[in-house]
């Protein structure tokens, strides 16, 4: 399979072409073709995983074009990192695509949805298998485009259209930073391929503060795509899209691309002097982890809570990479993909049943939707880090690495774990416990939706036990995972349980009514509800700056541009007026000009 790895992205691309062209006339209105495309790709990805586990590696390069004497080689890379990402994307995307058949049933643009899904799958696989900055940037932009198309899929809703635009523009800022970083690297190393750039760094072509700058700029792309602070504002709004989209793009895959990027370009960060770039990554991740978690506590929309949760967990992953926990960060990415996708699909199942996103209108759904409930519970326990579920292993690997590297970050992560358990507990009790507060008739979802839930649930439960093989498989030379520390693990579990207990106290046993809490903690509550006023700040700044630019541009256009044009016209008019006298048709004028010319010539001759 390895030499043919380039086929893997092409399968969903072919599906996209078929479905967008003849969608409604295909079997299943395009859904089956789309599922076939990604399922095949997923299968190939698993084969790749197997092959690379046995030591197979490959760098498939092609010389694309010769630019000014220098050949531009592009290609795909097959190594443990790309193989595990390909397999994960393939499997999770297949399950979500199958689930979408049930979720999007009856939608007027059904086939187009699957076409977009296939296009996204192509873009993501292309991104993950790329072995050079050009391809990864191309894949980056493509996933951004698909995100825009899918968030705004129900574009008749103005909120959805706005959210799609917000996502695109915000990530664009990150993309721009990434491009500048790539260009700096290209300028100094003369190549765009990863291996070429890393060799260039080792050879000393770029180093010191410039390397740190390039690394941070490239990380800027990850900040945008993975919704880290300060470019996080688009992810909660992106929940306007259909839930399968939220599951696939904004939980499992696209947002994980930022983490993947940092992992793929790890030499940039490791080689930056004093690990400055790594520190930036770690702190951005750590701060986002805790701030996002706090924002999730006050949300009533089930998908938005999960969005903040995603933001927070991505922060954990980046923090892990930042404290030299390369394997830990990647492992958390993989486990998170499964249990977060499951959480979103479960939420989608709930929304499908009760036709609302608002948790305050739910309740008692555990009895009405058992499969959904139990799989959701497994995923929640995984997310909050309760053993023996997968999240416990991956999150604690990160906290372990943080404890060894930087105690502050470990503290942030641990407090974040408490808040995570708190808001997930809140969500679970609001949604599934108690009695139903809404007006509909909740029922379990169709099989096509519940089977993927079960499969993902099994994965979320058992993947944690694959930590040791994973550590041997996905590693960065020179970076070792720290030894397990039993007291630390115990602390993590206790903190998570404490979070659950607090949530239970407030939302289940009503020991402290949440209304009372809201009253006494009014100031922090307001701050959180307004998302720390970041959206408002951005809006105000860009309005002011935009207004200024408009003013300047308008004035410039009126006075300088128009002024120049008008001046030319005026000048021509005056010149014409003056030169009129050369051609009056009157002899006396001509005669005068002749003698005037004579006088002038003689004077000029005399002066010289």
């Amino acid at each position, binding site marked *: 399979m390895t030499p043919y790895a380039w086929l893997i992205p092409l399968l969903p691309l072919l599906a996209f072409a078929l479905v967008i062209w003849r969608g409604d006339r295909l079997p299943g209105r395009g859904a089956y073709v789309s599922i076939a495309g990604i399922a095949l790709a997923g299968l190939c990805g698993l084969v790749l995983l197997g092959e690379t586990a046995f030591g197979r590696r490959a760098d498939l390069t092609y010389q694309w074009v010769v630019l000014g004497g220098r050949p531009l080689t592009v290609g795909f890379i097959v190594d443990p990192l790309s193989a595990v990402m390909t397999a994960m994307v393939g499997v999770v995307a297949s399950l979500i695509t199958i689930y979408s058949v049930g979720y999007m049933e009856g939608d007027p643009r059904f086939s187009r949805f699957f076409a977009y899904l296939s296009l996204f799958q192509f873009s993501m696989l292309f991104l993950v298998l790329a072995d050079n900055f050009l391809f990864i940037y191309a894949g980056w932009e493509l996933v951004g485009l698909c995100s825009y198309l899918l968030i705004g899929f129900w574009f008749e809703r103005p909120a959805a259209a706005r959210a799609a635009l917000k996502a695109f523009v915000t990530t664009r800022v990150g993309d721009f930073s990434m491009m500048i970083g790539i260009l700096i690297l290209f300028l100094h190393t003369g190549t765009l391929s990863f291996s070429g750039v890393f060799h260039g760094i080792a050879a000393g072509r770029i180093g010191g503060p410039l390397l740190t700058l390039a690394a941070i700029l490239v990380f800027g792309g990850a900040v945008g795509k993975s919704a880290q602070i300060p470019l996080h504002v688009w992810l909660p709004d992106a929940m306007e899209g259909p839930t399968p989209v939220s599951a696939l793009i904004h939980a499992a895959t696209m947002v994980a691309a930022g983490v993947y990027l940092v992992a793929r370009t790890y030499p940039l960060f490791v080689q930056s002097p004093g690990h400055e770039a790594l520190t930036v990554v770690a702190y951005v991740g750590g701060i986002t982890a805790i701030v996002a978690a706090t924002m999730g506590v006050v949300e009533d929309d089930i998908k938005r809570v999960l969005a903040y949760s995603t933001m927070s967990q991505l922060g954990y992953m980046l923090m892990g990479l930042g404290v030299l926990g390369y394997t830990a960060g990647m492992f958390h990415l993989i486990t998170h993909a499964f249990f977060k996708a499951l959480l979103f699909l479960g939420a989608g199942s709930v929304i499908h049943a009760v036709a609302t996103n608002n948790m305050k209108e739910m309740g008692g759904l555990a009895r009405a939707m058992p499969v959904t409930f139990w799989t959701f519970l497994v995923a929640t326990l995984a997310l909050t880090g309760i053993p023996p579920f997968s999240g416990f292993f991956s999150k604690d690997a990160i906290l372990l690495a943080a404890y060894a590297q930087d105690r502050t970050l470990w503290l942030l992560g641990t407090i974040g774990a408490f808040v995570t358990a708190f808001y997930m507990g809140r969500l679970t009790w609001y949604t599934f416990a108690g009695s139903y507060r809404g007006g509909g008739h909740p029922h379990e979802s169709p099989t096509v939706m519940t089977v993927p839930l079960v499969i993902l649930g099994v994965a979320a439960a058992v993947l944690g036990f694959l930590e040791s093989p994973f550590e041997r498989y996905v590693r960065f030379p020179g970076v070792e995972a720290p030894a397990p520390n039993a007291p630390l693990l115990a602390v993590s579990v206790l903190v998570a349980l404490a979070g659950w207990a607090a949530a239970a106290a407030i939302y289940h046993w009503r020991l402290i009514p949440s209304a009372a809490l809201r009253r006494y903690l009014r100031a922090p509550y307001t701050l959180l509800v307004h998302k720390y006023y970041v959206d408002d700040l951005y809006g105000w700044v860009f309005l002011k700056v935009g207004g200024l630019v408009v003013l300047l541009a308008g004035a410039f256009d009126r006075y300088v541009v128009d002024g120049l044009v008008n001046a030319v016209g005026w000048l021509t008019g005056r010149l014409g007026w003056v030169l009129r006298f050369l051609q009056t048709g009157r002899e*006396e004028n001509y005669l*005068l000009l002749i*003698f*005037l010319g004579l006088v002038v010539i003689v004077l000029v001759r005399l002066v010289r």
Partner: protein
Amino acid sequence: MTGEAIAFYGLAAVILVSGLVVVGSPNIVHSAVALVPAFLGITGIYILLGAEFVAGIQVLIYAGAITVLVLFVIMLTEGGTGLRQQQRNEQGPIGASVAVAIAVLLIAGVTHTTWGRGAGTLPAYTPGAIGRSFLGTNLLAFEGTSIVLLVSLIGAIIIARKEE
């Protein structure tokens, strides 16, 4: 002050004053009449320069024929009505400046050149010399001029003829 100098400056004064009247007077008849003293002054200049025959011809042709011709035409056209009309066109000032400039340049050029003196003297009786010259060295010019005279005579008649 020699007599020649007195005569020269006097004649020059006459010529210049009448010239000013010719070019400056708003009344066209005054201009035409002022031509006469101008031409007579120039005749005097010719006599001073020892060109008696030319002086005679000047009086005959210029002061006699041409001035009369000019007066005739003035009377036959609107000048004879005596109406006072704007006689100067709109480029008066510039024209004056140009004329003054040309005069200044010419005078400057003339006074800054050392003129050589030619050898020999003028013949005492110039008409004879002129006549011999016309029928000798300048025969071609003589004949050519007569043809031009003939042509212009015919031409003037044809142009000025009344349309029938």
